[in-house]
């Protein structure tokens, strides 16, 4: 390894850009997981399968029906949102009603089971083949004598747009404000006449939609297959541990940071080592700052 290559501004730029693209996906996945955990307290082990659903929707809309890619993304967001709503109302809510005080630990079993069911349904419907879309956006931009593909930049831009939309929704929409309130004190929100049950449903749908958008955006890198969600799920757990459980802005920062670190690791070591680095980082953070890197004073959010 020639370390002097890291001093080349062009190489640095490309690595950082690649890292940010990677990180944008991690952030999208982590945001969804964090939202759901932050409001409902449920750790969604089926989050990878929602990513998978998004990638199949993208494949159908863009690969089969030949529609433009942005329609595929909107469709993935919509379909997976509806799936999330159905999962919350049909399963999570039922469990919460029936299982009483221990429903949170039971919900782990529920979402793990759901992941298995969804994977097998995908297997039944599409088989184990991978379905990809070759290139969403053609072309590339030069960075010195190197280049970075326009597609990667588009992925990054669209991921940022999704985050921006979520931010605006949380900040300015009535429902968004109520979701933030319920995350801080659900009982107090109820005393103000806010139906927290509905917020749970909307939040689960939103979190799911983020996983769906991630799956759709990354179809050319992660083609749709029944088990495509496994790696994104692992990465989103890493992001959530680094950023602090239930902390959405922490998930964004941790996702981008992890993406860039991984891009450098792949460049310096080899493909595969980034997963080792991530694992070590997670263990280190759990030991030193269990509340997450971006939580002030080390208190849990």
């Amino acid at each position: 390894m020639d370390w002097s290559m890291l001093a080349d501004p062009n190489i640095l730029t490309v690595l950082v850009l690649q890292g940010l693209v990677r990180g944008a996906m991690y952030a999208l996945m982590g945001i969804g997981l964090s939202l759901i955990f932050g409001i409902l307290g449920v750790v969604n082990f089926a989050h990878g399968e929602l990513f998978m659903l998004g990638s199949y929707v993208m494949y159908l809309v863009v690969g089969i029906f030949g529609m433009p890619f942005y329609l595929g993304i909107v469709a993935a967001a919509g379909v997976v949102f509806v799936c999330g709503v159905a999962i919350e109302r049909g399963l999570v809510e039922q469990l919460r009603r029936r299982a009483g005080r221990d429903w949170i630990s039971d919900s782990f079993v529920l979402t793990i089971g759901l992941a298995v069911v969804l994977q097998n349904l995908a297997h039944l419907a599409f088989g184990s083949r991978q379905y990809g879309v070759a290139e969403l956006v053609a072309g590339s931009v030069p960075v010195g004598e190197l280049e970075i593909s326009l597609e990667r930049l588009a992925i990054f831009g669209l991921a940022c747009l999704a985050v921006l939309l979520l931010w605006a929704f949380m900040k300015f929409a009535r429902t968004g404000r109520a979701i933030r309130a319920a995350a801080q004190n659900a009982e107090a929100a109820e005393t103000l006449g806010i139906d927290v049950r509905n917020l749970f449903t909307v939040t689960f749908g939103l979190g799911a939609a983020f996983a769906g958008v991630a799956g759709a955006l990354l179809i050319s890198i992660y083609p749709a297959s029944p088990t495509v969600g496994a790696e994104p799920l692992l990465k989103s757990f890493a992001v959530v541990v680094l950023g602090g459980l239930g902390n959405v802005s922490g998930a964004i920062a941790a996702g981008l940071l992890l993406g860039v670190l991984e891009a450098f690791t792949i460049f310096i070591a080899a493909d595969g080592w980034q997963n080792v680095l991530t694992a070590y980082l997670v263990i280190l953070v759990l030991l030193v700052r269990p509340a997450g890197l971006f939580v002030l004073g080390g208190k849990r959010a």
Partner: protein
Amino acid sequence: MFLEVNDVVAGYTKEVSILNGVQFAAEEGKVTVILGPNGAGKSTLLRTVYGYLKPRRGEVRFRGELLNGRRPSEMLRHGIAYLLQGHSVFPSMSVEENLELGAWIFGKDRQARARAIEDAYDHFPRLREKRRGAAGLLSGGEQRALEIARLVMTSPKLLLLDEPSVGLMPKLVDSVYEEIARLKDRKMTVVMVDQNVKKAVAIADQVYVLKLGANSYDGPQADFLLRMDEIVKGWL
């Protein structure tokens, strides 16, 4: 009767009942105080009235209407407000956002919301000064003011208060009780759980004492004051 709790049995788990047949009534326009040792079930009684817990037996009636089985989020629209035990502001949201949420049941009616928030500021000018600041950074007294402002901004008929003066500086404690006594002038009915026997009873019309999830005493203020030493013996 305005609020009536009849022979209510309720608890947090199937095996254990915390309330064992509690009887309780609050008269319109009056302050009714619920006293009792720690763990007697005072908060549990309020939580059961508000729908956080379902009565296993017995009934809760508000102005004759059965409340059993209604959810907490429906209560404020029925005119029942609840001050939870401990602080209940949304700490990382601004004072104004907290008040906006207090006006939630006005829905899309911008004018009603704006008017309610303006009234709250007029009543507690300190809150107007700090409207942009995070509610969690307010002092304990200011947080309590925000909670009370949020509580009354929709003009509820019945207020359930769980230990409204706990944790406040002594000089603020009196102002909280004055505030509560003034609610009576606004035709609000108050049901208050409290540990501060002297100050609570001073503004009470009717007093209840709960012990181990069951009624131990009830009577008007004058009677309680007469027999106070005997009634509170053992838990103060």
